[in-house]
């Protein structure tokens, strides 16, 4: 699966799509492959603050639990309602399935993240 050029990536295998001062966050195709079938995504509530590099939730596959790390800091403005009933969307369309929307506190932090080419090198 191709890694879209309009996303930024982290070494922890999250992606972030920044649009002005807001962003959507999800996990990469590589991450979902490593996890296997996702059965549960635990996410913060709207209004919750997330901090770059720190845990904001967890994702469980049939066999394992992984932490979710925030690529950038901000405040949660929406949680993807689809994930409650259909966590498997993370496996099917990892780069289209956002988990949380965030109002960024420092949009310039995006500069420190990986672009798709750098991320593809990381997982190669």
């Amino acid at each position: 699966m191709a890694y879209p050029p309009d996303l930024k990536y982290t070494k922890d295998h999250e992606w972030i799509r920044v649009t002005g001062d807001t962003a959507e966050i999800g996990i990469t195709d590589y991450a979902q492959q490593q996890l296997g079938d996702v059965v549960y995504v635990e996410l913060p509530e709207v209004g919750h603050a997330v901090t770059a590099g720190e845990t904001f939730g967890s994702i469980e596959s049939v066999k394992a639990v992984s932490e979710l790390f925030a690529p950038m800091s901000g405040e949660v403005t929406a949680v993807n309602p689809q994930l409650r009933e259909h966590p498997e969307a993370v496996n099917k369309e990892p780069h289209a399935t956002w988990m949380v929307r965030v109002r960024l506190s420092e949009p310039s932090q995006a500069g420190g993240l990986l672009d798709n080419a750098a991320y593809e090198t990381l997982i190669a």
Partner: protein
Amino acid sequence: MSDTAATDFRKTPLNARHRASKARMVEYAGWDMPVEYSGITAEHLAVRTRAGVFDVSHMGELEVAGKNALAAVQRISGNDASRLSVGQAHYSALLTPDGTFVDDILVLRMAPNHFMLVVNAANTAKDYAWIAEQVKVTSDAAVIDSTSRYALIAIQGPASREVLQPLTGVELDDLKYYWFAHGEVANARATISRTGYTGEDGFEIFVPPNMADRVWQALLESGRSADVIPCGLGARDTLRLEAGMRLYGNDIDESTTVLEADLGWTIGWKKTGFIGEERLRRQKQDGVERRLVGFEMHERGIARHGHAVIAGDKRIGVVTSGTQTPFLKKAIGMAYVPASMTSPGTELTIDIRGRASQARVVPLPFYTRKS
């Protein structure tokens, strides 16, 4: 999380086949094993609705033979092997003097004084050493580790019989559950046992290692029209948990007695002189302080191995297995809880990574096949 060749691990005769088929490989009990082929959910559902094929050649085979082999097995194993006919098998505990588990095993009676014990991969060396020590007490009985002489392939699921039958002259309709027969599969010498670890009908097939790939391919070919697929250890674990079967190292070990594990039905109470007998009879009479139960989460979250069962801020039990099951689509698990909390319907509070979640005790197994 690397797919590089695991040179230090033991390999089953099907290792090259798994790698060529792009199965995801993991280290398990010192073996390089497939954890999933097409995904745990797809494989789990295939076994519940059609059939799946598993390489379980990592399991150990220990054979006890000699004039006094029956006496030796009766001493080391909880179940009553004198009740087994030749060609019959049962589930049992390999016991410590404390009535806990050296291992949980399948005992096959090959001949009046020849038994094969199928043991957990992680325990094969330990079990062999333990049994070798114990058979010294019984004259004229010997134990040999014949693990490397067998590949073990399981086909599990409702379509198993119709998939296997065209490949063998053994009349499978005549082979009852927990019985086995010798014959051939795909022209390879084989012992076919109607047993498994999934809660479905199915067969475990012992074949010479150099025939493993032929039998594996033949089963998948015969099962193609029924959409039978290869499966890994991941689905094996979710299937066994739905079926309420214990996993050594998770649910049972050398610190849990057979009665605490609620496996008292595996003990041959009419026989005497077995290892661990005194403590087990005492527990049977006085009751146990804690017991393994099944539970279902009724709040969101999945309890996992090692999570605490709590009451207020007190730790009162421990989760031994837990997952979200693909077929029942529930978060289920097993836990040791105080004897007063073992009745179905009892509310349990489980600490899932710092968050208290509610679960309810339910009868085991979670899943029972219809026929």
